[in-house]
């Protein structure tokens, strides 16, 4: 019943917008929570009735969806991050009308993201990436704050460039393949591997995905969009949106449609390494909490792309595992930034300090997230980075492995500085009245922290049964 991942959010939107606004405004939040939690449930517990049952809704639609292990990891990440973002939205968006619009847009984004990770057609991929992008523009700007409008505008402009590149690429590949299904395009790419047209089309599609994923040198929109968006939207954007519309698409296309290809892999490795270094160095100079996390995201996504470029099965497993881990701990850091911003009224780290005594849960979960981001054992981020470094070393990419390790030390440095400036030290007089954030923020933070710790501690037990089988998506 794969179609339910797309059709249920659709039905939810239809039901929420029936002319019963007083009732539906109350229900909107619970619809979102039920759908995202349900998605996590069916992916983790694999109930037979869902995966092998009769697809009654699917009988009316020919959606041609497919879920392999990579899709499963993405569906799980989407469910978890959407769940956290909805809870944060409930806590941070006071106006019920705005909250209702937020929920509708999150459900539309959910349709786009679920569709993207399940489809098997290049043009459909373009359409569903656009669903995610357009809902993201509005989500960033929906409170009509001037800074948020600026962030959304930067995103629109660069995203429009990506759209044009991808569309041009699809048109050339359609000409070459006669169809846009992944299998047809893959066959056409294989048959016309020396064609300059086809290589040009692949190149511009990859550039489009670099923009969507916020990779250096196409990262200009990302710090503004992440840092200026409302708190709940930052969680969604940083946690999963760019991962789905940029990084997942890159993994899927470079391994199964455009590749494997040695020159493409070389480009990916260079882009990944440059993103790791530039992102980490830029993060060290930031005083705004969310802006620093945004640059950190660029750096962490670089690890995924570096591993993708390495191309071995172990490296790809590491890339997908790090993608999952990053979606969890980066969401957690943005949930923490939402808590701090809501309680102090600022995201300027120079105006904070000593908040740990007033916000113990936020302090503890932030500590877990930053240690995992920096790759400190035994947390989840350590294991995924270790797999990536081992894969690079085994393939003879010693310099890239060295860059990955060195950048982890820089990451540790700037995140330690963040933790010290925000949570450690003496509480200033102005912040004496600060209290722990509400349940709507603390609860998702604790859930995300528990996942980070749980995956890290259970790694030796799940390595062979869950982590390595992720690589089965490779043909």
């Amino acid at each position, binding site marked *: 019943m794969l179609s339910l991942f797309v059709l249920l959010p659709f039905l939810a939107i239809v039901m929420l917008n029936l002319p019963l606004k007083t009732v539906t405004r109350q229900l909107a939040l619970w619809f979102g929570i039920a759908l995202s939690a349900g998605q996590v449930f069916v992916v983790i517990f694999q109930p037979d009735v869902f995966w092998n049952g009769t697809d009654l809704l699917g009988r009316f639609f020919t959606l041609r969806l497919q879920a392999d292990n990579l899709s499963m990891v993405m569906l799980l990440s989407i469910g978890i991050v959407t769940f956290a973002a909805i809870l944060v939205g409930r806590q941070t968006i006071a106006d019920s009308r705005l909250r209702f619009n937020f929920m509708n847009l999150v459900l539309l984004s959910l349709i786009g993201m679920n569709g993207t990770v399940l489809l098997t057609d290049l043009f459909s991929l373009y359409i569903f990436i656009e669903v995610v992008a*357009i809902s993201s523009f509005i989500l960033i700007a929906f409170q009509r704050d001037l800074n948020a409008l600026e962030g959304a505008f930067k995103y629109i402009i660069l995203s429009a460039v990506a759209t044009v590149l991808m569309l041009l690429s699809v048109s050339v590949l*359609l000409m070459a393949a*006669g169809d846009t299904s992944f299998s047809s395009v893959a066959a*056409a790419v294989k048959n016309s591997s020396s064609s300059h047209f086809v290589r040009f089309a692949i190149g511009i599609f990859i550039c489009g995905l670099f923009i969507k994923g916020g990779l250096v040198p196409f990262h200009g929109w990302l710090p503004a969009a992440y840092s200026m968006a409302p708190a709940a939207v930052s969680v969604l954007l940083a946690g999963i949106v760019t991962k789905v519309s940029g990084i997942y698409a890159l993994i899927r296309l470079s391994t199964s449609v455009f590749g494997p290809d040695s020159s493409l892999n070389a480009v990916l490795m260079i882009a990944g390494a440059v993103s790791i270094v530039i992102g980490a160095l830029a993060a060290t100079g930031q005083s705004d909490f969310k802006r620093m996390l945004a640059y950190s995201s660029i750096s962490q996504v670089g690890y995924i792309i570096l591993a993708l470029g390495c191309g071995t099965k172990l490296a790809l497993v590491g890339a997908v595992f790090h993608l999952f881990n990053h979606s969890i701990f980066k969401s957690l850091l943005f949930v923490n930034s939402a808590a701090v911003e809501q309680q102090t009224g600022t995201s300027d780290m120079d105006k904070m300090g000593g908040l740990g005594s007033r916000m113990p849960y936020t302090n503890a979960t932030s500590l877990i997230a930053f240690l995992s981001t920096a790759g400190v054992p035994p947390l989840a981020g350590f294991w995924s980075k270790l797999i990536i470094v081992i894969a690079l070393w085994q393939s003879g990419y010693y310099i890239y492995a060295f860059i990955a390790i060195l950048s982890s030390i820089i990451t540790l440095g700037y995140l330690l500085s963040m933790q010290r400036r925000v949570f450690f030290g003496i509480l200033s007089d102005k912040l004496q009245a600060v209290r722990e954030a509400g349940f709507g923020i603390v609860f998702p933070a604790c859930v995300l922290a528990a996942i980070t710790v749980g995956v890290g501690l259970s790694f030796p037990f799940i390595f062979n049964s869950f982590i390595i089988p992720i690589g089965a998506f490779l043909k």
Partner: protein
Amino acid sequence: MVLILNIILLVLFVVGAVWTMMTTRLLHSAVGLAFTSAVLTVLMFQLDSPLAAVFELSVCAGLVSAIFISTIMLTKRVTAEELIVQRKIRLASFWFLPIVVVAAAIVLSLIHIPVDFKLPEPPVENNVKNIMWNLRHLDLMGQIAILLTGVFGVVTLFKESKHD
């Protein structure tokens, strides 16, 4: 007869595109874009490429939404005098663009660009109905989602700003 029809369509296409870019009214611009896209769709059908034509319709749905939203975000009230000044500035800045586009199209049509890959066999029975209702259900769903997103964008960003 077909040649005359094609020429009329190409002229309409260029006129629609120029109008979309040069008009100072948001609504006219959106209608112009939809018109241009519709003409392009017909042109693609004329070229025996129904799949590309359907794709064009899909793209139009997405682009119209995106352009609506981005334009609304940039909108501010202007007086009649400012409108006249803006129109003059726009004409002075961009009058050459349509000429460049048409000239580039003529030059490109005269140059032979070698296609260095094997073109696939044309589809056997891909009529519009088959494409829209049997082959591209997922795209239709995506288009509906894009349109819905556009509606929520207008409601969220535009309708409520009237209260400000």
